[in-house]
């Protein structure tokens, strides 16, 4: 149990944030995280150690999140997550804070406009900092597809950011 608790503490935020690239409903994301961690506990013996443990855990999380997406599509429940970007950051100059918040809100909106595949791959490259081989393994796609998908995802993000900055009001 202590080993599992340590593993949980080490991965809970990362796995939850990864799941959030699929799900916009906090309750559904937490349920998927819970299912992932229980599956990790139950399947620990089957971990083959041919891949990194993080890749194995993210693989389980991906399946659980996609299951939840399918369930949610059926239920038509899509409650937006609270954005912590709306929260004040103590100790930061208020003007800087406003600018940061605006950038954060714009980026959040632009990321939300991306397709699921693009959102996921940008998260894996830039937040998780995974090598392209690991991403190919996790998503079960070729290394070439990983590379081109990141290129087009970044292009899309740039387009969304530019259209948000030029035209649409930030709410």
């Amino acid at each position, binding site marked *: 149990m202590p080993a599992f608790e340590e593993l949980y503490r080490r991965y809970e935020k990362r796995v939850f944030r990864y799941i959030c690239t699929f799900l916009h409903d906090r309750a559904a994301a937490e349920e998927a995280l819970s299912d992932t961690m229980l599956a990790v506990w139950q399947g620990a013996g089957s971990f083959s150690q041919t891949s990194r443990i993080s890749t194995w855990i993210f693989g389980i999380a991906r399946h659980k999140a996609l299951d939840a997406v399918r369930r949610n599509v059926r239920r038509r429940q899509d409650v937006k997550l609270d954005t*912590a970007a709306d929260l004040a950051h103590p100790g930061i100059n208020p003007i800087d804070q406003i600018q940061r918040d605006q950038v954060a809100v714009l980026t959040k909106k632009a990321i939300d406009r991306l397709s699921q595949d693009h959102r996921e791959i940008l998260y894996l490259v830039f937040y998780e900092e995974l090598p392209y081989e690991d991403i190919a393994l996790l998503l079960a796609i070729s290394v070439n597809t990983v590379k081109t998908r990141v290129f087009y995802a970044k292009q899309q993000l740039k387009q969304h950011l530019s259209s948000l900055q030029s035209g649409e009001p930030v709410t």
Partner: protein
Amino acid sequence: MTEPNTLPPDVHQTVALLPWYVNGTLSVADRVTVSSHLQECPSCRTELDELVRVDNQIKQTVSAGPVPSTRLAQTVFARVRQEAQQGQEEVRRTSPVMTEPSTLIADIDRWLRNLFVPQWIPTLVATLLVAQLGVLLWTLSQPSPPIDVGGSVASRGLGLPKARLRVEFQPFASMQQIQTLLQDVHGRVVDGPTTEGAYIMEIPASDPAAIEQNLQALQSRHEIIRHVEALRP
């Protein structure tokens, strides 16, 4: 997804590696190639600057996002404890000697300690030595029997030959799984744990091929055994 599986023709192929140049996971060779290309290519340098910005924006946005509630952790831990308890009850039902799957190492450790700690061991060793000496002296004092050339040859072995293995069990392996595995290979734990948490297992070994076969069978049980190797006799 309908996007092409290649980069646009006007984009340098090096661009495909830039995201991993930014996240620091490129191989040294690729890194050197990208670095030297960047020195000569302004358009790729612009692309790199944009990717660095994207990297920062994504890190900031994701970090500012929500985190799972602490209540969730307690719920998951409670469910895992419940499952562990159910597994424990299952083992109790099937094996009254061993009690708790999650405390395998502690159980074996306790068992070995009990074996080695008692004060009667020195007395027993001394008694056996005296008895062996007595038998040896008696044997030497007897005349040698005639050699029966025509008789059948009997085994002079002291029992079946055994091989010793050094085994590290998976931390999540249950007592029941290990018991079943030991039964499968007719093995038993004879020593341990070492400072690395390994145990010494003894298995019957009629010949080197049989040892190798058993070793491979054990190596394939990844769900129970993390590492196993044969010890030299």
